[in-house]
């Protein structure tokens, strides 16, 4: 059995920041990551980040990952375990792991879950044909392994991920003949949409995919305009020859361990599904279990990093570390998070968090 003071599960932006902030307060941290490398989704992000200097604005995601990974690996208080997957949570709080293909267990005084999210998918005829990918897989192929997924890719979903991955496909020389979005408006930041549009990619809002066609793999898709009830409008069906269909229709928080641990969970559509109830320092209803990043609600990586910092500070403080600077550091991180969410782009998150706070009051 391994022992640690603070166990951080997940080495993406939230987990990296949580580890650093807890370690800087003096806590001993073990960071487990199922991939052979740290960075989470950051390593696939080739675009410059938004936000402010504090969240590395104008730097590319993979460069931010390099920076944070270096700091984490150099920190004497942080023990990194790559190729380590959390398997389950036992009644006594012990977490079981698969580490380099062997079984192990780990005990801790506080835990920060930064497990991130998984992609949503879409059901339509032939949705299981080879050549139909989630956007995360396309990014992993291209940006981690240097493999292009195909020659002509239709994208489903005009949120930030769909539009950013479309742009990355264009950068690798792959054609993107359409971005298809069921909602009446583009969910991505408009500047991202403008970027792909001026490269000639049409965006079809209020459209949906009807079916994929092909025998051994996808060869063609049909898509159509939809009405208010999300039903196809007669006479609007279009065909598109493509060898890849990429699906980017949102994310769902990866919450299995939280459910297993018995944390109070609430379904909040605005936050992406079931999310844990939490205090204002990201502690769940089980004392000593904290959350940060997409597992707490789907949001941008800049917010995930700040949440990680807050959870790391709070978990360390709970164990008696860094009491002196705690309040000042916490106040400044909270201010950062509030300002990221302050504008119209943060409205849905603010609404989701308000609903969550209301259920907290009802339940308490």
């Amino acid at each position, binding site marked *: 059995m391994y022992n640690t003071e603070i166990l951080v599960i997940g080495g993406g932006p939230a987990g990296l920041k949580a580890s650093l902030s807890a370690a800087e307060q003096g806590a001993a941290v073990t960071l487990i990551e199922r991939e052979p490398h740290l960075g989470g989704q950051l390593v696939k992000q080739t*675009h410059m980040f*938004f936000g402010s200097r504090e969240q590395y604005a104008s730097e590319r995601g993979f460069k931010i990952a390099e920076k944070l990974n270096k700091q984490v690996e150099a920190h004497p208080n942080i023990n990194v375990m790559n190729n380590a997957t959390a398997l389950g949570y036992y009644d006594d709080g012990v977490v079981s792991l698969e580490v380099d293909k062997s079984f192990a267990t780990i005990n801790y005084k506080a835990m920060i879950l930064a497990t991130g999210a998984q992609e949503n998918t879409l059901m339509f005829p032939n949705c299981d044909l080879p050549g139909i990918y989630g956007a995360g897989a396309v990014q992993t192929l291209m940006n981690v392994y240097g493999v292009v997924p195909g020659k002509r890719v239709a994208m489903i979903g005009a949120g930030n991920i769909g539009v950013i991955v479309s742009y990355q496909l264009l950068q690798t020389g792959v054609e993107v003949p359409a971005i298809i979005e069921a909602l009446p408006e583009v969910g991505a930041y408009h500047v991202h949409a403008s*970027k792909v549009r001026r490269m000639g990619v049409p965006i079809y809002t209020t459209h949906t995919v009807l079916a994929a066609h092909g025998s051994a793999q996808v060869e063609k898709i049909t898509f159509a305009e939809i009405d208010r009830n999300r039903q196809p409008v007669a006479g609007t069906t279009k065909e598109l020859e493509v060898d890849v269909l990429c699906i980017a229709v949102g994310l769902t928080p990866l919450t299995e361990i939280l459910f297993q641990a018995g944390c109070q969970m609430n379904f909040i559509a605005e936050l992406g599904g079931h999310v844990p109830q939490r205090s204002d320092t990201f502690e769940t209803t089980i004392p000593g279990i904290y959350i940060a990043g997409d597992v707490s609600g789907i949001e941008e990586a800049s917010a995930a990093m700040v949440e990680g910092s807050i959870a790391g500070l709070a978990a360390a403080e709970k164990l008696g570390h860094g009491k002196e600077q705690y309040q000042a550091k916490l106040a400044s991180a909270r201010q950062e998070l509030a300002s990221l969410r302050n504008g119209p782009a943060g409205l849905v998150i603010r609404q989701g968090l308000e609903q969550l706070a209301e259920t907290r009051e009802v339940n308490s």
Partner: protein
Amino acid sequence: MISRTGVPTAQQIASVKPSKERLAEGPVAIVECFQEIPCDPCYTSCKSGCILPFEDINDLPQMDFDNCTGCGVCISSCPGLAIFVVDETYSEDEALVKIPWEFAPLPEESAVVTGLNREGEEVCPVTVKKVRTSPKKNDAYILTLVVPKELAFEVRSIRI
């Protein structure tokens, strides 16, 4: 509408365009940012006092064009690739347009390529005058294009 198509309206473009008099004075930054998102590096990178201080990180950039030197630092600091520099003093009937560029292979200097508008439609042939790495050294490039003056607010991309 930009929220449906990614293409800003003529009114939106007009709202970020400097006066004729200012354009006649030399290069100036055109910030085509129309959505309040949490992002402020244009302002923090501007050393000329052209992009005015943000009160809130979600503010839209406000410009004092008189202070703009056309240096282009903001082009490569904008994560949305939404900033361009237009210089209408280049020649009698041509303007220079600087655009951010993240595609390989890079065009050759003095190559003639196809200028594209905000919808990705072909507009006119343009000459690539300069290809520069971004001052931020962040793997972005800035292309300086020679564009017919009347199309300086149309051409925003190229096809090689």
